[in-house]
Every structure is written in structure tokens, then in C-alpha cells.
């Protein structure tokens, strides 16, 4: 009996902690259903007169759906590119022992600590000369590289868990090894690859800094850059800001729920391989 009580006490304590920690996010969602006047005047945390006004405003008066679509394009493209590159390199790291692989692994460590501003200054100048500011390509390429260390290490550890004998075909030329990788190792690692891809997508979808430097035209902005521009334009219109923030985090929360059980593996991937 005592033991049971302790368990429920712990659960209550845990729920209280969750409430406090997630409170800022909760207020965004709740406030998105209130007018700005109501947010500023009401002493209630729950909306007393719930309304969809803010959402109608976002829908009709802003480019929000364009931002969302741009985010989707950039995130999908960099996820696809990043996952393919990381899978190829991860397979090499998992199955071969060549000097350059060790060097590349060290280089990934430096990539992981590389201050993005250092990449952005020359790249901005470089891509501006090519008239590619407000173009998705530079953003996609930078996102892809930023994801490479994590994605490569994580995929490598998934490939490591597939027995080598399965893909070491009898004929030992490069083509048969590559076919073994594509036909045997990749399908067996499918859940891991999906998790890595969703991680990459989340990162790209959430990212603000790189997009804000390259995508300045309102029709090209990604969702975080768009919401930041709302913050500057309607700094006191909390209702619309909260509605755009709520809509903006819906894709994040859905993807997060899909991969949350892989999160533990992800959180230690950098540590184990780094």
C-alpha cells in the first residue's frame, strides 16, 4: 500500500514539473485563442472568450502559408540530400578501414563546432555574386552540411549493428559491395534512417540564422524568419504572434512525437562517436 502511494506521489510531482517547464509553450497555444486586448487585460490563464480571430487574420492578411511552404521545400531538400550523403559516408565509416576515413571523422568534429557566421560571411558574398540571395539553394546546402556530423555518426552506428557477413558478397568488387549495401544493409536500417531523416527535417525546419541571412524577400522567407518579421512589424499584436507561433510549431510537434523513442539514441550518438 505504501509503495503504491509513493508511485502516485511521484507521478503528481512529475506532472507539476512538466506543467512548470512547458508553461511558456502552453501559454502560446492558449493565448492564440484570445484577442490581444483580452491577453493584456485578463487575469485568467485559460481563454475566457475563446476566438479564432487571430487565425483568420494570419490566414487572410499575412504570407504565413508561403512561409510554411518555403520551410517545407528547404527542409525536405536538405533532409533528402543530407541523409543520402550521410548514408554513403556512414557506410564507408562502418565497413572500411582507410586512412582518409579517420581524417574525415575528425573533420566532422570540426564541422560540428564550426561557427556558422564564419561560413556565412564568405558564402553570402559568394552567392550574392551569383545573384543567389533569396534563392533556396545556398540555404539547403548549408543545412545539409550542418546536419552531416550527427547524421553520419548516427547512421554509422545503425550500419554497425547490421552483421558484416550479410553484405559481404562472394564477389569482392566494389559494385557488388555497393549492391549489398543498397539491397541488404539499407532495408535493414530503415527505421534508423527514418529517424535520422526526421531529425534532419526538424533541424532544418526550426533553423532561423542561416535562413534570415539568405532569405530576405517576403515571398522566400521560411517560417521562423517570417515569424521574426511579424515580431518586428506587430510587436504588440500578441494575439496574431501567438497564433503564428502555434501554427508554426504544429509540424515540429507531430514529427517529434514520431521519433521521440529514437531521441535517446540520438542524444548519445554524438557522444559515443565523438
Amino acid at each position, binding site marked *: 500500500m505504501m509503495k503504491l502511494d509513493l508511485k*502516485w506521489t*511521484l*507521478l503528481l510531482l*512529475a506532472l507539476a514539473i*512538466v506543467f512548470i*517547464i*512547458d508553461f*511558456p*509553450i502552453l*501559454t502560446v497555444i492558449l493565448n492564440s485563442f484570445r484577442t490581444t486586448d483580452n*491577453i*493584456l487585460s485578463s*487575469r485568467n490563464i485559460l481563454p475566457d472568450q475563446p476566438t479564432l480571430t487571430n487565425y483568420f487574420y494570419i490566414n487572410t492578411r499575412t504570407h504565413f502559408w508561403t512561409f510554411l511552404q518555403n520551410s517545407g521545400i528547404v527542409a525536405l531538400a536538405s533532409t533528402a540530400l543530407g541523409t543520402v*550523403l550521410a548514408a*554513403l*559516408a556512414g*557506410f564507408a565509416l562502418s565497413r*572500411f578501414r*582507410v586512412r*582518409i576515413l579517420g581524417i*574525415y571523422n575528425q*573533420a566532422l568534429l*570540426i*564541422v560540428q*563546432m*564550426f*561557427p*556558422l*557566421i*564564419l*561560413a556565412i*560571411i*564568405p558564402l553570402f558574398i559568394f552567392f*550574392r555574386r551569383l545573384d543567389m540571395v533569396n534563392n533556396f539553394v545556398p540555404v539547403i*546546402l548549408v543545412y545539409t552540411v550542418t546536419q552531416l556530423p550527427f547524421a553520419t555518426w548516427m547512421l554509422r552506428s545503425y550500419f554497425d549493428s547490421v552483421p558484416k557477413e550479410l553484405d559481404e558478397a562472394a564477389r569482392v568488387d*566494389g*559494385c557488388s*559491395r*555497393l549492391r549489398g549495401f543498397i539491397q541488404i544493409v539499407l532495408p535493414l536500417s530503415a527505421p534508423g534512417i527514418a529517424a535520422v531523416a526526421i531529425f534532419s527535417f526538424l533541424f532544418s525546419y*526550426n533553423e*532561423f*540564422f542561416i535562413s534570415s541571412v539568405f532569405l530576405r524577400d517576403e515571398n522566400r522567407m521560411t*517560417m*521562423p524568419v517570417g*515569424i*521574426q518579421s511579424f*515580431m518586428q512589424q506587430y510587436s504588440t499584436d*500578441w494575439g496574431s*504572434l*501567438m497564433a503564428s*507561433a502555434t501554427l508554426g*510549431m504544429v509540424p*515540429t*510537434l507531430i514529427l*517529434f512525437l514520431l521519433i521521440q523513442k529514437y531521441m*535517446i539514441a540520438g*542524444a*548519445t550518438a554524438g*557522444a559515443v562517436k*565523438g
Partner: protein
Amino acid sequence: VPIHRLPLERLPYLLLLPSLTLVCLIELYPFLTGVSYSLHKGTLLNTGAFVALDNYVRLFNSPDFYNSLSFSFFFALFNVVFSYLIGLGLALFLNLDFPGRGLCRVLLLIPWIVPAVVSIVSWKWLIADRGGLVNIMLAAFGVGPIYFLSQSGWAMVAVVVIKIWRSFPFMMLSLLAQLQVIDRTLYEAGKLDGANHWQLFWHITLPHLKNISIVQAILMVIWSINDFETPFLLTQGGPSNATENLILLSYRYTFGRNDIGRGSAVAILTLILLMVLATLMLRQQRRIA
């Protein structure tokens, strides 16, 4: 049957080629160009004249640089310490056996996974001068209002607190992962030897967490020093540069003042600083391990 039979020795190079090409284009090329920019007095339109180390000398004589250097340290130090303490506390808590702990773990990760811009919108309202929840609650106790974003000290506190809130879940998650692989029988053996809870924690739990703790602390120092989003979205480095870290300083020199020489010099110094810090901490790890 393949027409061109690929020699096996070439395969790893071929597999690496696409990644390596992109890393060279997106990081190696900018790094080398950045070093060159930092030795020139240039603008975004024109690389400008060679000035040797002049940009660095001017940085070492400028209060802006020391201000952002010290804010970067302050930010990283407080973030690592508090993310670790909160992360460790919650990891130990979630490692206890109670119903719903899996769900609680998922919900506690939310501050870490939502886009920075969403968090900042939320916190900006919570700590707003007028109508913000924190000031409304303070007023109920007859305190305030506190102008969180227009007073230097409070702005620094606000930026750091929000960063800790965004960072601790990652620490919690990796410590929890490590806690769950500690061999249970060690604790049973310890109990048989008459050890109390505190001794079990000190002699079994902590030593098992040592390695992951150091690695995660290194990562967190790197990410804190490299953070642009939290201070930029919350304060844009203000008021009067109180929350301007090295990255924001480099950004302001480059895009605000159109001075790519000094902007690049700050960025290069940041990279050097990070590499020195990471090397020192890794050496420490090898010494302990």
C-alpha cells in the same frame, strides 16, 4: 552484371566523395576565404586592401570585443552549469519507477524541440513590461514592474534563463540514457555491503556518468558560444550591447557596419577559442577516464 567492375579499394573514396565535396565548399572554402578577409579591410562589395593583422589589433583594443567575449563566457558557463544540474536532477527523477514517466520524459523535451522563434515569442510576452504575466504576478505582490529587456542586468539574466530552459532537456535526455544502462546488480551489491543512498549515488552512479557528462558539457559549451538565435531574437544584443556575444558582434560588424574584415576576424577568433576549449576539456576527460 556491371559493365565497369569497380575495384573494391576505390569504393570508400567514392562513398566519401559527395560529402567531402560539400564540406569543402560550405566550410573549408569559407574558412580559407574568411582568414583572407580578416587580413583585409573590406566590405560586402569589395574585399579591400591588405592590412595584415590590423583588424585583430583593433579588436584587441576595442571594448566591444571584450564585452562580447565576457558575455559569451558568462552565457556558456551559466548555461552549462544550470543545464547540467537541472538535467541531472530530472534524469535521476525520471529514472525512478512510477506510472507515466515515459510520457513525462517526452513532455519535458518540448522546450528543446520547438523552434527558437516560437519560444522567444512566448517568453517575450511572459516578461513584457506591460501586460506580461511575470510583471502582473509581481504587481500582485506589490513589486515591480521590472523592465526585463531594457535593463542590462535583467536582459542578461533573461537571455541566460531562456537558454537554460531550451538546453537542459538535451542534458537530461543523454544523462537518462546513460543511467538506464548502468548494471542494476552493482546497486544490489552495494546495498548488501551496507551502502546508503548517498553512497550508492556517489560511488556507482556518478562514476558511470563521468564520461558522458564531460562530452555533453563540451558540446554545450560549443553550442552556447555558437548560439545566435537566443540573444538575437530576444534582445538583438541589447540593451547597449549587454547581451551581445561573439557571434552577434561578428554579425553586427559584417552586416550592420559592412566591415567584413573585422567581422571575419571575430569569427576566426571564435573558432580558435572553441578549438582551444574543446581540446582542454577533452584532455581533462582523458586524464579522468
